[in-house]
């Protein structure tokens, strides 16, 4: 594995803090009704992305696909956060020119393949991307993420079987944050350890402490190498937690405030910051400067999104088909 150095820790701190503050800003502008629809935030789960990025070959070779909790992954993979923010505002400068919105961020160029709203729908897609990479011998590996709730969909079981049968270069990640909307993991199955679903397919599998980016990076490195060698998929259960509600209209009666606080004690950003302080990688002044820079960068994103224009109405018809001048049916 690529060594975890001083720079890694500093970058992890900068990145994770930015993702956290970016999501906080989205929550704020959502309340002001500048961002609409559903809004699913990643707060608490950042170590998964940080750990993955450490072992990915970015620039389009390795790929990631996930569900609707998808704003910060593309940013981590190199997409301009301004464009992500603009997408959530429904502006023409957004990653999908305002067509997709909060649940559907895409950037092919950066290897980020969405942004999917039907629970479990991206699981076969992720294996399909790996199928294409294997077919074309690109050496790329797909990281296919989904939630604990999605693990109950039939799509997972069909896909696991074929991915294993055909030894596809894919790493399946279940981000077990404890809940699918208001339903806790123990209420959806007779077993607790989701990773064990891999056993039935003889897929290499296991649990990971996903509040810690180092642990994530280590587990992911092994899985990515396995895929690159041609030995097929791995299934990792990332044990994580979401601090915020499922989306913005969640009263969260299904859990206690104390439970949330317990997890905040092992917050991934704090864990990394503690190491930075212990090892004296940064001075207090430098840390303060990072916090300030992050705040400014988020403000720039907001400004950019605010000031960007809405798309033209005609755009509704411009992106449905590749075919030019497609004869749409008149609707009014």
């Amino acid at each position: 594995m690529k060594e975890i150095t001083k720079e890694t820790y500093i970058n992890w701190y900068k990145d994770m803090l930015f993702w956290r503050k970016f999501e906080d800003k989205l929550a704020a502008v959502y309340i002001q009704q500048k961002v609409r629809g559903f809004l699913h935030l990643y707060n608490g789960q950042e170590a998964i992305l940080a750990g993955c990025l450490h072992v990915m070959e970015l620039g389009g070779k390795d790929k990631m696909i996930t569900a609707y909790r998808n704003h910060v992954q593309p940013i981590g993979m190199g997409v301009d956060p301004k464009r992500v923010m603009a997408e959530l505002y429904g502006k023409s400068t957004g990653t999908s020119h305002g067509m997709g919105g909060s649940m559907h961020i895409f950037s092919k160029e950066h290897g980020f393949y969405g942004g999917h709203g039907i629970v479990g729908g991206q699981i076969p897609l992720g294996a399909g991307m790996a199928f294409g990479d294997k077919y074309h011998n690109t050496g790329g590996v797909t990281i296919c993420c989904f939630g604990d709730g999605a693990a109950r969909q039939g799509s997972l079981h069909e896909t696991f079987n074929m991915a294993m049968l055909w030894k596809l270069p894919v790493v399946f990640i279940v981000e077990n944050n404890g809940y699918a909307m208001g339903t806790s993991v123990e209420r959806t199955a007779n077993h607790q350890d989701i990773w064990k679903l891999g056993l039935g397919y003889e897929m290499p599998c296991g649990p990971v402490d996903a509040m810690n980016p180092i642990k994530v990076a280590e587990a992911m490195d092994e899985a990515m190498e396995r895929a690159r060698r041609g030995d097929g998929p791995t299934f990792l259960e990332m044990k994580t937690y979401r601090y915020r509600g499922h989306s913005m209209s969640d009263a969260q009666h299904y859990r206690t405030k104390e439970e949330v606080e317990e997890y905040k004690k092992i917050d991934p950003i704090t864990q990394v910051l503690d190491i930075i302080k212990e090892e004296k990688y940064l001075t207090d002044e430098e840390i303060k400067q990072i916090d300030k820079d992050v705040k400014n960068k988020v403000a720039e994103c907001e400004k950019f999104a605010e000031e960007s224009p809405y798309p033209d109405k005609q755009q509704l018809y411009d992106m449905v088909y590749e075919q030019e001048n497609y004869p749409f049916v008149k609707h009014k």
Partner: protein
Amino acid sequence: MKTIQFREAICEAMSEEMRMDESIYLIGEEVAEYNGAYKASKGMLDEFGEKRVIDAPIAELGFGGIAVGSTMTGNRPIVEYMTFNFALVGIDQIINNAAKIRQMSGGQFPCPIVFRGPTASAGQLGATHSQAFENWFANTPGLKVVVPSNPYDAKGLLKAAIRDNDPVIFMESEQMYGDKGEVPEGEYIIPLGVADIKRKGTDVTVVSFGKIIKEAYKAAEILEKEGISIEIIDLRTVRPMDTKAIIESVKKTNRLVILEEAWPFGSVATEIAYRVQEQAFDYLDAPIQRINTADTPAAYSPVLMEEWLPNAQDVIEAVKATLYVK
């Protein structure tokens, strides 16, 4: 009469029927402990217990199919989909099993089941969360399709749907759950397959169903001030369709506008237009107008959503087109 919300109408209908018939149960995502994603089953877990109000994992194919299977051994399930967009994950069980098992078995296995949940758009939810499949289901022999537009209709129709011995698709809207309306204190049933004239009028007939009918109400107020009187027919049940009610109105007004929140190609509007030209051709004084959502997936941006969705202004223009006035 008492005033209740649409979500309460749904809840009352299910609860009243469940009190009377032990074989009915409710199953779906978040229906029990969370009281329903849109609180349409509030209090039902407390009243009926976890044997009859069942939280399912996110597995629409599985729990939909389990519900269909349980009809074969004596249950009358109500299946809630968080929205009908997600029913697509399990649509095989609806189309290939629920709709066919009675006929294929030579009548041995009636399938008394209700599949219910919200349909159509609900704000800026993007392409996969804004779809209306009334016509898909209505295209399928063996199913009935009900789409109420207010709390009174919702309660009476849902009770009829639960009592019906055939599979019924019952479609609601996230944007209607908070709507308030009057319902009788006592029990009442609204039979399936009967349309309702929501507003009497003389100049143009407007046929609609579901929440989008509210755009016709708005248009009617504005048109009235201009001296144009429209008659608004609420289909309430899409399949079987109350063709007679539409034809009678068209024979009186000689003009027809159809307002539907769904894509235009092969839509419910298309079916209505076919029936009207077949049965009332000589009564029509103008081509039939239809208003649908744009022939594209929904897009997120508010400006695109505005273009995509039908609104009152579209109704006004269509009505005027049938009257040849500007």
